[in-house]
């Protein structure tokens, strides 16, 4: 009977979890050193903020490498990476070096366990080839180029999904790269009049990202963006015009100001509200004064607000914690 069918439903919750679960939960952390509590999966949007030279691009690169590596032996996500370089700082040699470091580490571990050694070399080459095939890189020089690149990656995403290996991560290196250009564009205003001002550009970007995420069901698409500081953190040595700007700027969100004051730094939030509402996680990175040649970095999760600050250094196989 129809009523009976309607009451019984299509599947139980347990069956549904069994169907979807392995693809969203049970994923290895992308950057294990910083993700002891925070677990990221396809429906999250992470913003990595920090001053220049505080290892933001390095964080994104490590996450991308972990996503490219296969599940077997490397504990990776075995998925594709879409990298949008708005900053021009991407270094393909560094990506290759990181992948090779992970592969060598795995090969050494397998050798120590007493497995055969002859297949290792070809195996490593094969793994490197498959990883590089899944990495897609686009460089944009303006907000308009970025939005059109996002639009044209829809087809790309669908094609990759039908081939089997879908995209798992979308990386935007420096979402604030065109901040000043967009702010200087004239704002025409009006709901039906889209303009290329900062608000309009960000709205279009968020719309495209949501669309891409909808197309990547059910695994979802993890969006990771880095954001460079536009204003210097110490307000005492900025000029007078900056304080004049502060009065005009109505984009400051009180929740984020509370976040930053708790971290002890005055990190002024300058991105428009539509972007601030889109992100689900915020990570703040800082570089400390180096003693000798080792630079020490610190990381603090602002959203979800964890109170402890991790300190780490960087080497080829990942971030190494120093305070544990």
């Amino acid at each position, binding site marked *: 009977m129809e009523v009976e069918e309607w009451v019984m439903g299509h599947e139980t919750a347990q069956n549904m979890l069994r169907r979807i679960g392995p693809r969203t939960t049970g994923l290895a952390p992308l950057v294990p050193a910083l993700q002891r509590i925070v677990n990221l999966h396809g429906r999250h949007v992470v913003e990595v903020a920090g001053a220049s030279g505080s290892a933001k691009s390095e964080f994104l690169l490590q996450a991308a490498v972990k996503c490219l590596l296969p599940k077997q032996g490397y504990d990776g996500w075995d998925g594709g990476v879409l990298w949008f370089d708005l900053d*021009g700082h991407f270094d393909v040699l560094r990506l*290759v070096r990181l992948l090779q470091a992970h592969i060598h580490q795995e090969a050494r571990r397998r050798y120590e366990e007493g497995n055969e050694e002859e297949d290792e070399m070809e195996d490593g080459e094969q793994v490197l080839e498959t990883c590089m095939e899944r990495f897609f890189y686009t*460089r944009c020089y303006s907000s308009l180029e970025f939005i059109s690149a996002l639009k044209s990656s829809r087809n790309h995403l669908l094609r990759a999904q039908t081939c089997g290996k879908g995209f798992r991560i979308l990386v935007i290196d420096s979402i604030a790269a065109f901040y000043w250009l967009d702010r*200087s564009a004239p704002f025409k205003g009006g709901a039906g009049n889209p303009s290329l001002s900062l608000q309009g550009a960000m709205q279009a970007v968020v719309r495209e990202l949501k669309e891409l995420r909808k197309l990547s069901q059910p695994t979802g698409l993890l969006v990771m963006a880095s954001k*460079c*500081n536009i204003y210097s953190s110490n307000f005492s040595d900025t000029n007078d015009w900056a304080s004049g700007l502060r009065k005009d700027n109505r984009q400051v969100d009180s929740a984020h100001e509370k976040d930053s004051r708790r971290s002890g730094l005055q990190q002024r939030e300058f991105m428009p509200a539509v972007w601030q509402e889109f992100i689900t996680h915020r990570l703040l990175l800082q570089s400390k004064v180096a003693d000798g040649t080792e630079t020490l970095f610190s990381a603090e999760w602002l959203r979800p607000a964890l109170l402890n600050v991790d300190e780490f250094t960087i080497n080829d196989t990942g971030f190494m914690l120093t305070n544990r």
Partner: protein
Amino acid sequence: MRFSNECKNASGNRGSWRTISSHRLREVHLDKLLEGGLREGTVTELVGGSSSGKTQVCMQVAASVAYRCRAMVGFVDTCHSFSATRLSHMLGGLVGGRDAVQRRVGAADEIGDAMKSIMHYSIFDIFPMLSFLNQLHTTLSVQVQSMEEKVMRLLIVDCASSVISPILGGIPGHALMVSMGIILKKLALENHLAVLITNHTVGGEGGHPKPALGETWKAMPSVRLLLARDFSSNLCHATVMKHTSMACNRHAAFQITRTGLRPVF
């Protein structure tokens, strides 16, 4: 200066990232410091107070590339600090021989050829600078490469900060600064140039000098070198402040002599 060529296409297809060749020339002090010299596709910034040797380093790099790599060099001079006589001394030092008598036959021609491949442009304002950079980008993009002609591999902007600081202040100034940064990066990445710019310093927190032009400009170059001059020993110290793929705070010292820069170990 040593160059590394890297090719990657926008769709990241397999195979293109393997064709990385490096032209190894001579181990100059900056080559050791930067693990290979200036790379094509990157913007390197030299930061230093006044009279810390920035223009000397720029001219030495220009001479080295023009002579050793047989390539064209664009030298944009915004503060009248370029000197052709000094450049000829540096080229003389690279060619060899202490004076005209000891130099081998044909050395003068080599110096002349190298001087001819260094193009000097005097630009003192931001708008002519932007239009020049855009025009250079268009010219280099449509250029058909032939075997005999030299191709431009290095662009030097000596004192980028002197065209930017007068207009900095408020939103339009920052937008112009960011557009200059974007066109420099576009030249580096799409036309395969190595871009070298200089910047001066301003006082920062605790009395330590910091690069001028603010936080936004700090994120623009891929590599930043801090130059400091020690007048008592006439040495110039270079430290790596920022590098996208290398550890920072590496240090090298060199001496400014009559025939150019000499590394000091």
